[in-house]
């Protein structure tokens, strides 16, 4: 059987043109997906059943036992943390918010260690953006800043920019210019028309210089700015001003380097400035296929995109205080539920030391680095493979993922709903 128009649950591109060939309830071939997506569809060795730590061994337990364990853990915790969420569907994220509210916990998603600073910048100055198709059909200038799509979002270039067909471009490949700004010559830089190499930590200065040139204050620019020659800055600014439609896509190279959210703020203000001359947009290259969905769900349910603390009954948001890394580093939380992410692979050592000291339940189809910190791990269906659900593409377009095969694994939503029901029952008793 071939499933057409399947949705790839890997990166924020959320490609929805994948063909998946299934034989005997196993994926045997994947067409159209990039290497990252293909690997995900082909699957690795999944965990068979829920497991419970028993001394230094693992013991198989039933789903009922695992769900009860998690419910009890959250109910008896004083300051539970519900973390992850970017690797699951929106319907499960909604249950997660209700659970956090019920136990007065903290709910946070992976953006607090990813594009969190981008969100802070947007909260200061807004976000002039658009859907990916607007760029595909119109943009004659695309700038990748601190992002390397060839490695991280392999089909971004072919579906939306460099190699994409565009309605208003006669010969899209020839008529569309690509600029790459980075601290090293990445693979993406090698297919660019212009490569701007910045000294590490110099993004803010370069953005300020470009803003000054766009405002007509070229005289104020020194011979070089963070290693970039004045002539190149003027050339780039002119390319921007003379474009009919320009689009900036930035990655963690801008978000997580010196300056952090101030970099993003400066980049957004450059785009707002350019919008007075021509059409310009800017967007983040979001990582997980549904990290943006997690921000969206949190926002309509709680008012905030990430880092929400319900300990006082109301939704309270203060990134740096109510975000997962901070709660763990301060050794505040006394239980953790992890869904759709792998914090042990990404968090600082100090946080993991605390994670090792508290009870942890993880929902994940596969063993991962966090498994080593778990008391219980519950294998679930993979959204987009054996579970359906809503995901939001990096540009905010929501797509319903398809189920390409049937398994007995319950979805995240099903497991969480059972937990939530047990918790409500216990509290209402």
């Amino acid at each position, binding site marked *: 059987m071939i499933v*057409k*128009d399947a*949705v790839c649950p890997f990166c924020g591109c959320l490609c*929805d043109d994948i063909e998946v060939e299934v034989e005997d309830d196993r994926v045997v071939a994947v067409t159209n997906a990039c290497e990252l997506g293909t690997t995900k569809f082909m699957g690795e060795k999944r965990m068979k059943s829920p497991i419970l730590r028993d001394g230094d061994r693992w013991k198989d337990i039933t789903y009922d036992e695992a769900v009860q364990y998690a419910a009890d853990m959250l109910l008896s915790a004083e300051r539970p943390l519900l973390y992850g969420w970017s690797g699951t569907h*929106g319907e499960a994220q*909604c249950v997660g918010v*209700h659970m956090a*509210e*019920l136990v007065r916990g903290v709910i946070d998603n992976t953006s607090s260690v990813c594009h969190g600073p981008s*969100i802070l910048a*947007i*909260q*200061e*100055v*807004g*976000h*002039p*953006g*658009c*859907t*990916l*198709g*607007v760029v*595909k*059909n*119109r943009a004659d200038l695309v700038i990748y800043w601190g992002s390397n799509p060839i490695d991280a979002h392999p089909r971004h270039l072919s*579906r939306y920019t460099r190699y994409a*067909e565009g*309605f208003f471009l006669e010969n899209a490949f020839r008529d569309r210019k690509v600029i790459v700004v980075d601290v090293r010559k990445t693979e993406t830089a090698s297919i660019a028309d212009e490569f701007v190499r910045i000294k590490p930590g110099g993004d803010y200065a370069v953005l300020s210089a470009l803003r000054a040139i766009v405002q007509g204050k070229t005289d104020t620019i020194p011979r070089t700015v963070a290693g970039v020659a004045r002539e190149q800055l003027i050339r780039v600014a002119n390319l921007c001003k003379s474009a*009919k*439609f320009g689009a900036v896509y930035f990655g963690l190279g801008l978000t997580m380097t010196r300056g952090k959210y101030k970099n993003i703020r400066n980049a957004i203000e450059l785009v*707002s400035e350019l*919008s*007075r001359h021509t*059409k*310009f*947009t800017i967007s983040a290259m979001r990582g997980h296929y549904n990290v943006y969905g997690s*921000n*969206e769900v949190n*926002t*309509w*349910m*709680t*008012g*905030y*995109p990430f880092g929400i603390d*319900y300990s*006082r*009954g*109301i*939704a309270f*948001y203060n990134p740096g205080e109510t975000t997962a890394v901070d709660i763990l580093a301060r050794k505040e939380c006394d239980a953790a539920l992890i869904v759709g992410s792998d914090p042990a692979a990404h968090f600082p050592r100090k946080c993991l030391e605390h994670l090792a000291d508290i009870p942890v339940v993880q929902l994940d189809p596969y063993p991962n680095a966090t498994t080593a910190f778990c008391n219980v791990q519950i294998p679930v269906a993979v959204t987009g493979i054996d579970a*359906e659900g*809503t995901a*939001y593409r990096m540009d*905010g*377009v*929501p*797509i*319903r993922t398809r189920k390409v095969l049937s398994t007995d694994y319950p979805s995240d939503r099903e497991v969480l709903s059972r937990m939530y029901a047990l918790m409500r029952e216990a509290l209402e008793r």
Partner: protein
Amino acid sequence: MTELLVKNACVIDPLRGINAETMDIAILDGKIVEEVSDAAEVIDARGMLTLPGGVDSHTHICGTKVNFGRYMSPEDMRAGRTPRQGPLHATSGYSVPTTYGNSYRYSVMGYTTLLEGAMAPLEARHTHEEFVYTPLQDTMANTLFDGNWGIMEAIRDGDTKRVAAIIAWTLRAVKGFGVKLTNPGGTEAWQWGKNVSCIRDPVPYFEVTPAEIIRSIVEANELLGLPHSVHLHCNNLGTPGNYSCTLGSLGLIPDLNEKRQTLYATHVQFHAYGGSDWKDFCSKSEPIARFVDMRPQIVMDMGQVMFGRTTTMTADGPMEFNLYRLHHEKWSNHDVELETGSGIIPVIYRRKNLVNSIMWAIGLELALLTKSPWQCLLTTDNPNGAPFVKYPEIIGLLMSKKYRDAEFATIHPDTEARVPLPAIERELDWYEIAVMTRAGQAKALGIQDLGKGHLGPGADADVAIYPIRMDEVDPSAEYQKVIDAFSRTEYTIKRGRVVARRGECLVDGSNATFWVSPKVSEAYDMGKDPDFIEKFDRYYTVRMRNYPVQEEYLNRNRCIETEARI
């Protein structure tokens, strides 16, 4: 079987011509019936003002741009928050509350049906997801067609039936209710950083004018037999002198429908400005109201501005950019491929600001100068003119000259020379308010036959009982009592169940979503049209099969099938 009897209610039910009659309302399984058994639960309304549940025919509560308004505004989220309590979830937000915040606050004010004013088809799934978490109101979404490529091409080819066919396919796919045009043509031009100045300005590349878009889509809307008329946000919103553009747009509309208007012009306050720049900015509510008085084919809503902080959000991207250049606050924009766009900025309307004061006056003038309340409905274009929690104050202003004068004394002193408001003596009565907040809205949306906006047998049992007795209060003098009563129902009944009482919501609900499915002939099924399919595949970034919103997203599915004449 659940039965409820509301006794001794003082009912105003304009769609049935009932004006302040004391009567009982019998409810069986969520519907109004002639009578119930003695076993029915009884609510004694003790002569309190009892109206059909409130209907908001133009509000922004759910979807991509609304949620982005929240996302970018933690300061607004902090400005209104309540904890989890009983069956109720925590809420955040003042001008753009969370979905639960919207739902609870509307419910406390007696509102049971809401129309989201602008849904981009490509992002419709998002709107429907948020509807699910708006539990205490039935919902429906106006669907944006202002910059739709396929439609503009069909208009250029003079093919109105194809325009209708694309609308039919899209509404069915995205589970939309009505046809919305926001700055027609302007949102497409804005994807080049441009705009159209008024209805005769051609759209770049497509070479059709807003006038052609409006006229053609109005005809297509009637070919499809849709319950609601075209819902128009005119070109040129918010600019001095734009009233002539508004009159030009309204003048395009023939009278094509016996049951309702042919055009719903939304938030007309923002389109009723005189003057040539901000220095001689003034009210042109009088010519607009006179024009509408003579044309039964037009219904408008006020788009009232109230003083204070709010967030503006609209599909009208270029307008928001202009506003950003005036206010220098944060600015978000979100263009949607092949379809439309949107923009968001926070604003503060100030009494000390002359332009803001004039805007405040214009909204009230439109409501007071338009003869028939059925033709000018009460809205703030929530949250653009003000958050909907200001509705009770607007009701107070419309019912009391004294209140208006007291407020007028506090606004910019030069306002008096620029607006007719101080000279208007009219005070609206209870019946007129009932028309403007439910009956007229239901009629304009074309949902009275679906049991909305009235209390006749067979209607949905959505009832608002306000803690006020008409015979004991003089609204003209005691306007504060009116404001208090409309702020907090004694009971809000939704589908036969008490959902709010004296300012507290009591239950978690589950709403119904209304959408339309026009039945078209095989030849006009765009799902099988090779040209439509090819363009979709080449220029959208979502596959055509992944575009339609699945029924999983509809809580209670109220599909309205229409017989199209194509």
